């Protein structure tokens, strides 16, 4: 017998048991659809992180005061960082530039509505490139800040959308009240992809100092000189700053982190979370595999006599093995194909819905690797589940099989 015959036979027997094949396929594609959907979101988020880290560049460090708050920026810190700390950082060998950033809570009033966002004051005159890189900011519309403006403001993306932050969208050159000071909207930054960052408010250092007199820097941003390892530089900066602030090792009231480290930490947390979720979804594929085994086991039992006839007219064990494994694999592959299509539809719909609610971060990414991988995976799962029943079938003695009732 040639292989084409075997394949045709396999497909025919699947067709002969339509309902059973259908149910088995159904159980496979549910699991595959769930997994591809989840993976596509996981991939989308890592791609986003990758893109952000590209835009930030890996030559940056961040110095921040310690506090009891849950996660940065720690507005609650009572640790003071000022110009002398900044000068200390600038004097560290390997630092190419460094700037301080003020950050306070901003209460924005527009059309009698009040909303809250982080209000940042930065040195736009000298360090605009550094801070726009760090925050992955690109101007969406309007004019950039030059550094001297005392009453101009750049807003996060979401302020120009209706019903997002304010009912009415804010437009260029609109006047808004920030902590009871009037500012004119000079422009909007493009979307970063999460509601918090897209509600940020940016003004110049001068404007911050003259209007709100902040007590200390929220962050200090540092760029490493070309060729300097930022993670090693972070240690040097930490040492110098510790000396400057007269603290002992372990007593520091500040953090120094390179973006490399931050991104690496974030990535590992991300992969743990997606890993766990995918693992849970994988359980359903495992159950589907059990179903396939069951179906194939039934199939071999039903066709015992048939197998006997095959063997009697000269079929080898390997041919029988091939037929049943192929059947299991094909069942699962069809399930995989439907599952991938369904997963694609599901993640597109869910992705659109989530993006509409402001979390552009959660954009699914469907790569050809994912598609091919899912299909191969589905086929392998099926073939593997069919292995035991197929092996049993191939080992049947022709005489016994023929006699089977």
């Amino acid at each position, binding site marked *: 017998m040639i292989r084409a015959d075997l394949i045709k036979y396999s497909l025919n027997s699947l067709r002969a048991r339509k309902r059973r094949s259908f149910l088995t396929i159904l159980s496979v594609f549910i699991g595959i659809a769930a997994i591809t959907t989840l993976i596509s979101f996981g991939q989308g988020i890592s791609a986003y992180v990758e893109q952000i880290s590209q835009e930030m560049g890996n030559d940056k460090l961040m110095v921040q005061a310690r506090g*009891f708050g849950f996660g940065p920026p720690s507005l*609650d810190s009572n640790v003071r960082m000022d110009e002398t700390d900044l000068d200390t950082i600038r004097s560290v060998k390997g630092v190419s530039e460094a700037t301080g950033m003020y950050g306070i809570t901003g209460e924005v009033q527009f059309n009698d509505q009040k909303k809250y966002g982080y209000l940042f004051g930065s040195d736009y005159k000298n360090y605009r490139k550094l801070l726009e890189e760090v925050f992955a900011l690109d101007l969406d519309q309007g004019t950039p800040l030059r550094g001297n403006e005392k009453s101009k403001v750049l807003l996060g993306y979401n302020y120009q959308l209706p019903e997002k932050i304010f009912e009415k969208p804010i437009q260029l050159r609109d006047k808004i009240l920030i902590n009871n000071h009037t500012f004119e909207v000079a422009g909007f930054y493009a979307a970063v992809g999460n509601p918090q960052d897209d509600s940020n408010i940016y003004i110049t250092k001068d404007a911050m100092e003259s209007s709100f007199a902040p007590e200390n820097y929220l962050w200090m941003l540092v760029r490493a000189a070309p060729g300097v390892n930022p993670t090693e530089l972070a240690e040097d900066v930490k040492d110098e700053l510790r000396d400057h602030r007269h603290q002992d090792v372990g007593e520091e*009231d500040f953090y120094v982190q390179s973006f490399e480290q931050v991104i690496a930490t974030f990535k590992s947390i991300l992969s743990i979370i997606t890993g766990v979720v995918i693992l849970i979804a994988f359980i359903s594929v495992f159950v589907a595999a059990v179903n396939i085994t*069951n179906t194939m086991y039934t199939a071999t039992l039903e066709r015992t006599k048939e197998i006997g006839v095959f063997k009697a007219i000269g079929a080898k064990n390997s041919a029988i093995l091939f037929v049943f494994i192929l059947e299991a694999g094909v069942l699962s592959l069809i399930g995989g194909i439907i599952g991938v299509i369904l997963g694609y539809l599901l993640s597109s719909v869910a992705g659109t819905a989530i993006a509409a609610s402001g979390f552009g971060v959660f954009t699914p990414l469907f790569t050809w690797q994912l598609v091919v991988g899912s299909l191969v995976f589905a086929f392998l799962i099926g073939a593997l589940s069919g292995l035991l029943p197929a092996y049993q079938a191939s080992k049947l003695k022709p005489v016994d099989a023929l006699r089977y009732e």
Partner: protein
Amino acid sequence: MMRDYLQLAYGSLKNRKVRSWLTMVGIFIGIAAVISLIGLGQGLRVAVMGQFNFLTTDVLTIQASGLQNGPPGEGVVNPLLDSYVDDISRIPGVDRAIGRLIESTQIGYHGFQDFSYASSVPDGKDRKEIERIANIELAHGRLLKDGDMNKVVLGIDYLDPETLGKPVQIRDSVTVHGKSFEVIGILAKKGSFIIDNAIQMNEAVMRELFNVNDTYDVIVAIVPNPADMARVKVRVEDYLRKERDVEKGEEDFSVESPEQALANLDSTLFAIQIFVYVIAGISIIVGGIGIANTMYTSVVERTKQIGIMKAIGAQRKMIFTLFLLESGFLGFVGGIVGILFGAGIAYGLAFLGSTFLGSDLIQVSLNWFIVLGALLFSFVIGTVAGFLPAVQASRLVPVEALRYVK
């Protein structure tokens, strides 16, 4: 009669041992996954909520709005003024109003540093009230009293060498925000970081240390009669709107009862839990499809048998019941094994978590309601999956069924 059914159902399942086992395995895996996740998820929720629910229920908590990223009062634009306290305490239904300060700070002890927050304790009669509301009890030493300068009471975490290098002793001195303080008391363990990690000092001392003049981070209003709570809340909101000159719907403050504050946190945790359950639940559905498949096969295989039963007088209802029982049985037994396994996994993980990670957050919370629910659910899944095959079996025409050849 029922006994005959059960015997028949059991007998035919036993005849196809491998298939029955595989079908049950399908269900049991799903149930085990869901049960273990529910157990751990509920446990996490209990642990997290336990961090906050030591508060008594007869208080309204008033805070100014802003970006909430840390302890109360941080990231606020218009803080609460201390003049509010007297006004609020005069609002009908309010027995007393007390303001508190909360500041993030560094605490040092023999060269070791930790970050926590300091909170103020008011003078006079209010002191007793705060101790009652926050459920403050003493483990060692004494509590603060009026006129205590340069003295602090610490939470029990500072007895743990992990926090500051070695246990802090009564009468030792610690530095808080750069100033030296004598430790006069240690609070009893409450299992909540708010109490266990606390640094308490008198209000006047705290105002001077952190240079806070006429504001508060939180004001609590004590409402002795729970029935008044809703009405008093409206009155307090009206007062604050007038005082802070804001329109309805644009409040820059919040007035919450403890239940409300907890409900907000709880709903977030619950949403995450549901997401995980749904994903795990998919496997139960897949298991159910397995049951349906097995039952269809079973109907086809036993066509002749059904024909004979019908020929000797079995009614449709009987055939239907027989097959439905079979599938229900598959689901039920799969469910029992699944629950046992799932509970085992959950308790095993919790044990590993507490032994090797020392984390209280990994704990199990399973109750009879969940267990019975899961059991019922697996039985229902079994019967639902078996419904169509059972209908098909019951509708077979005896003559044709008898004639059927495999």
